[in-house]
């Protein structure tokens, strides 16, 4: 089956007795004509690439513009010193989101999830959790299937590119994917997955895409943090029994509609928002001098 709506996935779970991740796995096997082992092995390469990116982060790389680099390490050290107001897990989530998104800006290897700009959100909530909870690799892969299924639904119904739908479509979608993955890891119900996705997406609705000088650096790196923290809070709310008053598919559709209504200046063109501030313009001017030979 194709992944066109969350309710379709929920119905399929009821009909077949499969878990959320298994429905997504089955759909991948069907769509790409691969075996279960081939699909899961590929998901493992995705997870390994996320782990490698985190393990090889040193904080020493700088982006082409020089605007980005080193913040993940600052946050990590602050977190290790036990100073963070947000406590152990969440402060590590923040550090990981910064590190991963910086790695992208600094031309290191990452996994687009769902886009390169939003690559930090999902690994940021999963990697530190492995330290705090006993999780098998299989459980992590299951969570990645859940995330990719949610992302597929959002891509189909609303879109996942900043150019088409603003940053809510990139960071917002990543947060929704991560929120659902966390609920699934905690063995939440399918309804709770739906509420977590809906809440994560609602909380970032309307977010503009306004990258300074058109580069995936400012504000992108730090937006990964708000995406990751949004995901953790939405997952916790859902697991606590808090419900979204608007059903998840309707929230996704609303996100798509808001994206279409966003002015083009706020959709990756670097003509509005932070990109159009005096400082943003100055950065652009500095970078777009004569092309170095």
């Amino acid at each position, binding site marked *: 089956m194709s*992944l066109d709506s969350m309710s379709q996935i929920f119905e399929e779970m009821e009909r077949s007795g499969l878990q959320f991740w298994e429905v997504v796995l089955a*759909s*991948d096997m069907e*769509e*790409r004509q691969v075996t*279960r*082992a*081939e699909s*899961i*092995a*590929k*998901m*493992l*390469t*995705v997870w390994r*690439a996320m782990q490698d990116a985190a393990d090889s982060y040193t904080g020493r790389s700088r*982006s*082409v*513009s020089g605007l980005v680099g080193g913040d993940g390490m600052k946050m990590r050290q602050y977190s290790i010193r036990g100073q963070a107001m947000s406590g152990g897990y969440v402060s590590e989530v923040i550090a990981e989101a910064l590190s991963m998104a910086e*790695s*992208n*800006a*600094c*031309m*290191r*290897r*990452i*996994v*687009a*999830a*769902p*886009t*390169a*700009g939003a*690559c930090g959100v*999902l690994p940021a909530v999963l990697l530190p959790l492995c330290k705090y909870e006993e999780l*098998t*690799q*299989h459980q992590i*892969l299951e969570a*990645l*299937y859940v*995330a*990719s*299924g949610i*992302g*597929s639904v959002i*891509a189909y119904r609303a879109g*996942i*590119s900043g*150019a088409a739908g603003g940053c809510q479509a990139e960071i917002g979608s990543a947060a929704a*994917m991560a929120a659902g993955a966390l609920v699934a890891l905690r063995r939440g119900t399918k309804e709770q997955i739906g509420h977590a996705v809906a809440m994560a997406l609602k909380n970032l609705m309307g977010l503009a895409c306004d990258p300074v*000088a*058109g*580069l*995936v650096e400012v504000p992108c790196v730090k937006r990964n943090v708000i995406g990751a923290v949004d995901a953790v809070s939405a997952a916790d709310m859902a697991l606590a029994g808090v419900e979204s008053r608007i059903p998840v598919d309707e929230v996704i559709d609303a996100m798509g509609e808001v994206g279409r209504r966003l002015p083009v200046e706020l959709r990756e063109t*670097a003509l509005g928002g932070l990109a159009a501030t005096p400082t943003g313009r100055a950065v652009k001017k500095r970078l*777009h001098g004569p*092309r*170095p030979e």
Partner: protein
Amino acid sequence: MNIFDILGPVMVGPSSSHTAGAARIGAMARTLLGEEPAEAKLHLHGSFAESGPGHGTDRALVAGLLGMKPDDLRIPNAFAEAEKAGLSYAFDTVDLRDAHPNTVVIEVTGRSGRTLELQASSVGGGRILVTKVDGVDVGFTGEYNTLIIRNQDENGVVAAVTTILNQLRINVANMSLCRSRRGGSALMVIETDQHIKPHQVSFMSDLEGILSVIYYDKEEEDDVSGFDESNL
């Protein structure tokens, strides 16, 4: 789109369209040239021209020409790698009317002097679309195995090619035919589900009426043999 377009590609940052897609376009040019490139002129259009250097588009294109995939850690050092490999390159910007914003025209010359001109766009998520080969309009993505056949525009040539593919049990996913002028040469682009072996490609190039055959083998999936789920 499949779920690995959502969780993926695994790539060197910072932008799937400006970096990963650019690397794929460079690699496509290399494959279609069919030999080690010695010299390349790259004309950047639209957003590729605008934010190219900051996104590493220029380095990714050169990396692709050197045969690197989008997840190759050498992409940031592509210019140094090009020097080592003896590839010279030059960039400028062009204004192509009506082209996708992320478009490049690559003129590449191989070691033996063979030349190729390719126009391609990066259309999102690292996916690409080749829109011109040697000035002839085409439209293929590299998501399939692709045959690009230049043939004399005369009766029976197309039929001969499809008959052979049929005999080889190679399934045609998409096929298009363009000619520059009646009775001159034409370009056939055939996307296939199965891989085509080198000897099969050369067999086709020897057919009467065929001027040249270029074959693009789609990006290999990772080898997952030996994977055992119960070890996870």
